């Protein structure tokens, strides 16, 4: 199984945070930057996080770990690995918001959903797109999509 993986190239992140904006837009209703800003903010939040300290900046999103603590810790089975893509998704219908996943994720990349649903929200590798929005729109290729594993 070939598995998509986003590489984070810390040395090339310029801290523009466009990845966040495109992430939000990709997961929005309208898929339009301007409309998202005008009408949909508060309903979607980015699942990529940009960190910044002095000269160091980088974007980080769910690593879709081999041994995923979040999947192990999930009490509802909402957090699961898709056997097709190898990625980890959260089934928001199942999630009860116990935040066990937030407690155990060593990357701190699972968020409490921003909309009325108090359920976990995380990177889904943009399942419905060829290229995750953050990767596609990173102006300096600080996020790079690779495929690991055998085909």
């Amino acid at each position, binding site marked *: 199984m070939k598995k998509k993986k986003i590489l*984070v190239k*810390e040395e090339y992140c310029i801290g523009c945070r466009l990845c966040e904006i495109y992430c939000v837009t990709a997961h929005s209703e309208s898929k339009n930057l301007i409309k998202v800003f005008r009408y949909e903010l508060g309903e979607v939040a980015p699942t990529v*996080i940009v*960190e*910044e*300290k002095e000269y*160091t*900046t*980088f974007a*980080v999103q769910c*690593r879709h*770990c*081999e*041994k995923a*603590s979040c999947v*192990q*810790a999930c*009490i*509802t*089975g909402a957090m699961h690995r898709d056997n097709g893509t190898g990625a980890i998704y959260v089934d928001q*219908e*199942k999630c*009860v*918001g*116990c*935040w*066990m*996943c*937030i*407690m*155990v*994720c*060593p*990357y*701190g990349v*699972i*968020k*409490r959903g921003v909309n009325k649903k*108090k359920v976990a929200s995380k990177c889904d590798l943009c399942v419905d797109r060829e290229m995750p929005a953050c990767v596609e729109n990173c102006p300096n290729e600080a996020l790079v999509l690779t495929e690991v594993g055998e085909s």
Partner: protein
Amino acid sequence: MRYVIIGIGPAGMAAADAIREIDEKSELVMITSEEVAGYSKPLITYFLGGKVDEKRMFYRFPWCFEEKNISVMTGTEIVQVDPNEKRVISKRGEEIPYDKLLIATGGSPFVPKIEGVEKEGVFTFTQWKDSKMVASYIVENNVAKAVVLGGGLIGLKTTEALLELGLKVSVVELADRILATTFDKKASQIMTRALQSRGCEVYTDDTVVQVKGKRKVSKVLLKSGREIKTKLLIIAVGVRPNVGFLEGSGIEVNRGVIVNERMETNVENVFAAGDCAEFRDPSTGESTNIAIWPVAFAEGEVAGYNMAGRPVKYQGGVPMNSVELAGLATISVGFTNVEDNGVEILKYFKEEENVYRKLVLKDGRLIGAVFVGDIDRAGIYTGLILQKVDVSSFKNDLLREDFGLVYLPKEYRKKLMEGELKVWLE
């Protein structure tokens, strides 16, 4: 090869998964005393509160067992393990042979000696059936007020569910504060206030000494002399490893079943994992019985791999809990109540927002963390605790609001980002 797993909780299910990862063919039998298999126990309070329906109770749908070629025996209480004959015997007298056995029977509720505790309307709360019974009892008896004995996690999660149902609830806790074993004083205090603000009464340094009423509960008498009118008393003072049936089997039991880092008991081909197991750390000689879901899952996985022949070692865990009560999310990881000399405490409290963070450091390493209100990115701290990372170089950054991976030493971050760190297993 025939694997037998007693108990279908997280440990049992993780073990089954691990076994099937390696060995798809061999016979695998899972046994539970309950009538349903594959549901998630921590969800029973959510079920009571109406947040989770019947369908979503299932962590694993029955068809998953079929898909993985697992035979499930429900309603089967095991009363004896016979390692000499390599079999287990059920209450009904069935003899089930095994080649490899996993004991993952979890815990059973502890009921203190209280006068009148046998009356109708007194419940423990550890199984789905408890939840169902309480739910129908409330409806049938028009219960408007409940008393919950025990201010620990199960007690409070039950309280939360009862509040959701519109009941008035009084929590009675023997210790001087609620959440005494898992959270620190400040967190307890914040949570107490949050519960109180929702109309919940909290009595600490107190306990129920007598249940009054004819056939059914009508009021309870507290040690302090206070009487509370109630039709419902839920006893949630804790669980004990469910190991009584092992008596005479030769399997070493202390509080729980003693296991080594491969989840092996002293008896060959018999493993134990989860709430019923007591991990004896070979490097320290200390024994721990941490009854939480992630530990049960990890132990179960280790047990499963070893049963199927892949030598894997358990790295040990720390207690950790996450719960949202009265709208306040809280997380506690590791040792948060330590107060000896060698310990350094870092704290951060924003009263108006009910945001509280506390970090416990020892010998330059993080050993505990408490988060109330703002729990975002708490897992980064959990990682630091589990990996025993030396945090002294960035100690002063730990409490920053924007604390994140960027403050970690570059080496650790690099390893982390490349996915080289394994948290639970070696």
